[in-house]
């Protein structure tokens, strides 16, 4: 069972929901929480477990071998990303532009561009009772999040069976990293806030999920601020509003210091129970 937690707008509470839900569900279930917001992963600030595994993650890039190169220029011709450029008698590789498609390497007539690995991030796995937590972090300066998200998902697929509830804390937005993080999910929870920004970006997120043909529902966070337009929109569009997490200064303060909320604030626990019921019902039908 894979649940992705996503949102169009950043800062709506994806990480708050992911960490609280994962921790709460792990009281009775085997749960895997995966932070796929590899550019700015934050779940680890709220989940304190024991580090049980870590590895460096690499992407493959071509490396020029001058001795055998005939300067035929084929590599430059086949690279659609301008990551391989012939400059006079030199072949230059721009690793941050490379998509690791292997075309230049495998189509080189003399094998002068073998693929070599370049570090793009770190994956860490933590354990706390029934909860496993996986976090991947992109190296600063590395521009592409998708390959690291892809490898992280693969790690989770190979390591954990279907009996666990897997929760994926996704990156914000609607572009390729979000698609990568949500495309295998059984269900997507879209977190929003009841403000004009929240509604505008929620609509983009909904459009994305429809395009991906995903089942999804909405969680309204900071309920009480702004206006009623998000809920009215969801009702009109027949989109289920699964829970409404209230807004309060106390919640913001707990969050600011890296604390989980549901043991301190009973209104939050009540909403998590609603989400739990929803997920368990969903699990029976899958």
């Amino acid at each position: 069972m894979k649940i992705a937690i996503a949102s169009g707008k950043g800062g709506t509470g994806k990480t708050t929901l992911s960490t609280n839900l994962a921790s709460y569900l792990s009281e009775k279930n085997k749960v895997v929480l995966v932070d796929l917001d590899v550019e700015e992963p934050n779940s680890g600030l709220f989940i304190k477990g024991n580090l049980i595994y870590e590895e460096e993650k690499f992407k493959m890039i071509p490396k020029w071998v001058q001795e055998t190169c005939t300067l035929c220029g084929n590599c430059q011709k086949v690279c659609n990303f301008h990551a391989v450029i012939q400059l006079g008698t030199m072949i230059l590789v721009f690793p941050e532009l490379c998509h690791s498609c292997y075309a230049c390497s495998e189509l080189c007539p003399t094998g002068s561009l073998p693929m070599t690995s370049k570090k793009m991030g770190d994956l860490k796995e933590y354990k706390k009772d029934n909860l496993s937590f996986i976090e991947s972090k992109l190296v600063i300066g590395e521009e592409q999040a998708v390959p690291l998200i892809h490898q992280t998902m693969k790690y989770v697929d190979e390591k954990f069976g279907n009996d666990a509830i897997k929760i994926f804390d996704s990156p914000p937005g609607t572009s390729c990293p979000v698609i990568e993080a949500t495309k295998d999910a059984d269900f997507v929870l879209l977190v929003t806030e009841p403000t004009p920004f929240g509604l505008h970006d929620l609509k983009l997120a909904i459009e994305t999920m429809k395009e991906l043909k995903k089942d999804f529902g909405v969680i309204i966070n900071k309920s009480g601020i702004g206006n009623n337009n998000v809920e009215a929109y969801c009702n009109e569009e027949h989109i289920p509003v699964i829970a409404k997490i209230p807004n309060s200064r106390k919640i913001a303060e707990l969050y600011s210091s890296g604390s989980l909320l549901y043991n301190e604030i009973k209104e939050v626990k009540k909403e998590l129970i609603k989400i739990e019921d929803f997920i368990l019902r969903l699990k029976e039908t899958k």
Partner: protein
Amino acid sequence: MAKEIVIISGKGGTGKTSITASFAVLEKDKAVIADCDVDAADMHLLMKPDFAKSEDFYSGELAVINQEACIKCGKCADVCRFDAIPFTDSKYVVDDLSCEGCGYCARVCPTDAITNISQNVGEWYISDIKTGSKMVHAKLAIGADNSGKLVAQVKNEAKRIAEEGSYDFIIVDGSPGVGCPVVSSLSGANYVVLVTEPTVSGLHDLKRVYELVHKFNLKAGCIINKYDLNEDMTSKIKDFLEKENINHLADVPYRKEFIEAITNGQTIVEYDKGELKEIITNTWNKLKNIIN
């Protein structure tokens, strides 16, 4: 020449867009606005743009297989590193969302059954806005790659407008994260404003995004929004700013008027009449002094 100020935050939801929009209102017709948060652009909700000029944006390619010419040899699927050509219903079909447009498949196809078509990945606009100035903004197509290139397009247009007119500033609402759209947002900046909040996530993301700013050798200042939410965390942020030589521009208190303004479709400096307005106005003036 107009000075370019890029406002970023690393973490979302820190108030970056609200503050950027306030600066735009304060500087009126002397600042061109660029919304480089093309993935979830929100500036237009506060700037009332007229979408006077719009243009399609093409970037990247997508492989398409002509089924009549395909002999089902499977070479395309073999070379594809993105698992974008599954064999389903006894034919090879490209999965649009997985295809990265590298074109390798077309190069190995023995019957030339594969063509690459360029992709429409969004639209960009030049608008007249309520401040009497111009704004360049964009809408990225769903699931599109290359948002970094669209960001570059938006910025280049804003620069062109600034050079042709008599503008003092280009105010850029940057993208979240530390990846390719942010790198694009930062290129060519004269000054970077980091908007953060005193939370564990705020500080964590500030440090990561500053690493990127530092890598580009850019001067930066920081606004701590909701500073009174956690004074202990605020002082940790201040320690970090001091250590890294980042200008501490302002502490903005946690007030309900901040959200009320957006809910009314207004910037803080239009909606609020009290301390928030004063702080944001002083911050903008301070910022201008530092840059000039």
